[in-house]
């Protein structure tokens, strides 16, 4: 396998220009929403609002204002996390979701049948159906570009290097240095998803945050969906066994009642 590749997104230098969103849409030929007629969100300067089947990049605007002169903007270019242990890949019943030689996670649109199991499995709400293809879609980390030695369209377009593309090991080193630099300046910065011993075995798209993960719409402890399998299946088997016993006990009671009514074990029975 080639080196694990991914993104390190430093949210402190994101200016919310959405060049990454545009570059992603353009390179991947993603359709416009509502036939190009934009609906304004009405409560934010961010009108994309979320990742979905036709928005594989989304610059999230977090507008923290207590008053007109008391607040701050947080901006984060969000994308598929290309989890080292990917829930979507685990549950996909068609084998449409694969792990590539770059350790990224890609949905093969010609294999996906649109069952949407991956949408419910993703802890980050990244995947959705592309209404044009009828299949589940998300960021491919520009798999086609990576195969010919190009960097992904979004990071190429990012004017502030908020989105940095590279080998994961190198990105982690760079991210740790940046956190140390920010902390020395009194900024309360932390990395999200950078640790290979953290949730999901680490994220191949990880972030530098300056507030709680939840503020950025990220779960604090993302988990694999199959962690629930053993317990849920076990309780189902146990309840099935209870029902089976209840049914058999009921049948036996009926037979005994009939025997009793017929005058004991020697009486007539209705055995099939």
């Amino acid at each position, binding site marked *: 396998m080639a080196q694990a590749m991914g993104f390190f997104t430093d949210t402190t230098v994101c200016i919310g220009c959405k060049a990454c969103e545009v570059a992603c849409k353009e390179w991947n030929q993603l359709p416009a929403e509502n036939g190009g007629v934009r609906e304004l969100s009405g409560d934010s300067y961010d009108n994309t609002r*979320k990742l*979905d089947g036709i928005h594989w990049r989304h610059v999230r605007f*977090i*507008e*923290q*204002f207590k008053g007109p002169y008391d607040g701050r903007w*947080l901006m984060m270019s969000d994308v598929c996390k290309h989890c080292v242990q990917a*829930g979507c890949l*685990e*549950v*996909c*019943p*068609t084998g*449409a979701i694969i792990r590539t030689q770059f350790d990224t996670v890609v949905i093969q649109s010609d*294999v*996906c*049948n*649109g*069952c*949407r*199991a991956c*949408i*419910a*499995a*993703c*802890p*980050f*709400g990244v*995947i959705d159906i592309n209404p044009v*293809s*009828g*299949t589940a879609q998300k960021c491919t980390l520009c798999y086609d570009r990576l195969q010919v030695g190009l960097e992904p369209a979004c990071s190429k377009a990012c004017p502030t290097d908020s989105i940095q593309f590279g080998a994961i090991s190198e990105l982690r080193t760079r991210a740790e240095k940046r956190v140390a630099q920010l902390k020395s300046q009194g900024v309360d910065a932390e990395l999200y998803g950078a640790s290979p011993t953290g949730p999901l075995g680490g994220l191949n798209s990880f972030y530098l945050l300056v507030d709680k993960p*939840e*503020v950025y*719409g*990220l*779960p604090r*402890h*993302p*988990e694999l*969906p*199959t962690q*629930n*399998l053993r317990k*849920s299946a076990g*309780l*189902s088997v146990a*309840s*099935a066994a209870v*029902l*089976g016993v*209840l*049914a*058999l006990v*009921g*049948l036996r009671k*009926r037979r005994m009642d009939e025997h009793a009514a017929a005058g004991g074990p020697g009486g007539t029975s*209705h*055995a*099939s």
Partner: protein
Amino acid sequence: MPPDTFFSGAPHWTWFIIPYFFVGGLSGGAYFLAALLEWFGHAEDRPVVRTGYDVAAIGIIVSGALLTIDLGKPLRFWHMLFQSANFPTIMFKGWSPISFGAWAILVCGLFAVLSALGARAEEGRLQSAALRAVGGAVRGGVAKLVTGVGGLLGLFVAGYTGVLLSVTNRPIWADSPWLGALFLVSGVSTGAAALIVFAPGRGATTRSLEWLSSFDTRALVAELLVLVLFIVSLGAVNRVWLSFWGLLLVVGVLALGILWPLRLHAKRAPVGQAARLVLLGGFLLRVATMLASEGIDRYRVAGGM
């Protein structure tokens, strides 16, 4: 801050999947009960057994159709069974309930159709010579084997849908380990109710119906217990029920679907009345649990504060 499941996206499993979960559960439950009566029942239970096989066969075929129609690409339904690039290599993931379930529906459906053909051959209701030959072969020991395996698969089909929902990252579904058990018990309970409703048309005796009714009473008590455990296990997530779906759960599922039928059983009311309410409750259980979760999409902190 909300639980981690609130950050996931809704899969839009709604008006094809909800009836599929209901019909699949009911069919699997009916098949399980019919198989039990095939193995351990009386000769007078045969009308119930035959009804159970018909309900299972028709129900599982309908389930498969609903599941297929719901796909974004329905013509690719076979991608769940075979590797599309390496046909006919099997596509199967034992740790993915949706993959396991696709195979279970296919195999259980085949067994249910065989059982139904056997039952119809027994009644002399098959016109086609080919079907008569197949149905005629499913008798005696073969019938017991087919229904034994099929009945267990039916139980799986009745319960795997709840496990499928648990193996996600969605609110409610992934927040409790009891959903699989709840759907299974409800599936078997609605299966018994369906037999009570349909079997009289095939000549079921009062004693057979009384046994079904008595079993359904016990299944409803079990369902009540599992429902309570399900709600308790949700903990803080229970605030999602402060909505129309909570009202539906309490009134439609708990009161109308469980407590009222139990009262009717206790009063020895005609068994059909309670059975119809159990069917309604089973359907509403799936509506409430599915749509309460579907209504929650990608949590956003208001104003980022």
